[in-house]
């Protein structure tokens, strides 16, 4: 178990200094470190690795003290026996793949180094690349080499800072499978920083949400990311609609409460939360969770049906982003096929359909 409890303040030219103040425990297995950019995720990993010094607090792995400000202990990174895969990967450009992988084995006999390199290269499917230079590798190959170079040292903690950014999802899945297999055999705390929801869902046993240098929430991915508790986290978790709202009334019998959106422009029903009537809150709704109809829908279970005007249509890659003014302004994502079938065009009168449980209370 990796336990941290640290505080680090950064001097800045701006009015407010950035403060990282994090307390968390990381059990063996994957923990996703999630949060908007600038939340302090990389700084936290740097502190755990010993590349940056916290101002106060402590970091320990079981009984082993990595850092203890009160007792003036700080193990240098060389002695923390952990592995860290940087976002930039930091492969040594002048060394071959084999030399890169062997770099962390300097203390072993040469024959053991060769053996270790061979077996990890096989496990990560890079045995044919050993004589190449990093500049001659593709993105996915580089990421595999960086993982192999880190894992060969038999670390007691593994820090991964967005190691799979920029890969297509098939490649990402295949690397994640190799990593999961390695984890099943070794069971150490793995801290995995990512922005990618797909990665969170496929590896996350737990999520720690970091916002503005503070741990805001810890829990299962669905609990943390599907019901974000802060505006920053809602944005980072991919909620396109985060609307200001005021609680109007509680209906405990139905398990819901009514809120008015955007200065009483419209009212919707959301799951009952612990905000009293009259409280200012925010409601987060994914753009993909909103349905669009061109006629007033009837006989639906969805409780929120809002008439409105389609203001704009914008095609982004494989999907279409609509902006609809239905009291408040909503972002709605639909497929290009839906735009054709409904013959959507700006100015059209539409109805938005939102399930109660697609609406999340945010403080």
């Amino acid at each position, binding site marked *: 178990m990796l336990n941290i409890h640290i505080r680090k303040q950064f001097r800045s030219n701006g009015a407010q200094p950035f403060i990282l103040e994090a307390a968390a425990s990381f059990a063996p297995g994957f923990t996703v470190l999630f949060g908007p950019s600038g939340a302090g995720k990389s700084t936290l990993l*740097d502190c755990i690795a010993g*590349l940056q010094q916290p101002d106060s607090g402590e970091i320990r792995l079981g009984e082993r003290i990595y850092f203890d400000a009160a007792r003036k202990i700080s193990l240098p990174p060389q002695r923390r026996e952990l592995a*860290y895969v*940087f976002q*930039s990967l930091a492969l*040594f450009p*002048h060394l071959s793949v084999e030399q890169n992988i062997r770099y962390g084995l*300097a203390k072993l006999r040469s024959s053991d180094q060769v053996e270790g390199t061979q077996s990890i290269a096989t496990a990560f499917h890079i045995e044919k690349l050993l004589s190449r230079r990093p500049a001659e590798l593709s993105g996915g190959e580089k990421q595999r080499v960086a993982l192999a170079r880190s894992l060969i040292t038999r670390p007691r903690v593994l820090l991964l800072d967005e190691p799979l950014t920029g890969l297509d999802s098939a490649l990402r899945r295949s690397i994640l499978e190799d990593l999961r297999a390695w984890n099943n055999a070794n069971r150490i705390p793995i801290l995995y920083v990512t922005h990618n929801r797909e990665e969170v869902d496929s590896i996350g046993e737990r999520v720690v949400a970091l916002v503005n240098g503070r741990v805001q929430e810890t829990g299962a991915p669905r609990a943390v990311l599907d019901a974000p508790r802060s505006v920053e986290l809602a944005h980072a978790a991919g909620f396109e609609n985060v609307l200001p709202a005021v609680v109007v009334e509680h209906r405990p019998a139905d398990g819901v409460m009514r809120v008015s959106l955007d200065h009483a422009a419209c009212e919707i029903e959301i799951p009952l939360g612990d905000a009293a009537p009259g409280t200012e809150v925010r409601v987060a709704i994914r753009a993909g969770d909103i349905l669009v109809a061109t006629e007033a829908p009837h006989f639906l279970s969805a409780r929120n049906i809002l008439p409105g005007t389609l203001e704009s249509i914008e095609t982004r890659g494989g999907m279409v982003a609509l902006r609809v003014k239905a009291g408040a302004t909503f972002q709605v994502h639909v497929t290009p096929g839906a735009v054709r079938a409904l013959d959507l065009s700006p100015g059209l009168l539409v109805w938005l359909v939102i399930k109660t449980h697609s609406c999340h209370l945010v403080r």
Partner: protein
Amino acid sequence: MNAEALLLSLRLAATVSFFLLVLALPLAYGLAFSTWRGKFLLESVVALPLVLPPTVLGFYALIAMGPRGPLGKIWQSLFGHPLAFTFAGLVLASMLYSLPFAVQPLVASFESLDRRLLDASAVLGADRARTFLRIILPLAWPGFLTALVLSFAHTLGEFGVVLMVGGNLPGITRTVSIDIYDRVQALDYAAAHQTALLLLLISFVVLSIVYGVNRRVWSPWLAK
């Protein structure tokens, strides 16, 4: 052409660039990697010879090396002869004079290294010495070459400091640039011209090497 003066200059330049590299390495390492707040003071001291007139530098060097100067006294007690107006004195003064030409290229090449490579090396268990030998040295070698070549070329052409500290003793302290000055004073323009042209050529070749190497070297390991 005065071969004796030319050989002396080459010997001086080679000696100075060798010792300077040894001295500049830890200095540059400190300037590039330390987070010490008073670093700018050290940077200013190192850059001082760039803006100081050589005669000023030579003057203070002469006073320090003189029989009553601190350096001169230590030297006298160690070796039993004075330091001023000797080859060793010339080497010391020239090192001071060429210091920024050795330190600055090294600092620049250290600072241009990707810090994450050094972090990666540390996390993989390498101590500072190993990181230096395996990562910094191979990636920053154009900086080393530039430092070596520039301090060599700069020492080869110096005049003011040599005149102040070394005087004009044939075979001991009379370097090419002083020789040229002597020839011009004696109105022997032909001889002055020969030596001057040679110095000009050497400087040009040396600079071409520096620029050529720096242009080419950064590319082969980085993504094409």
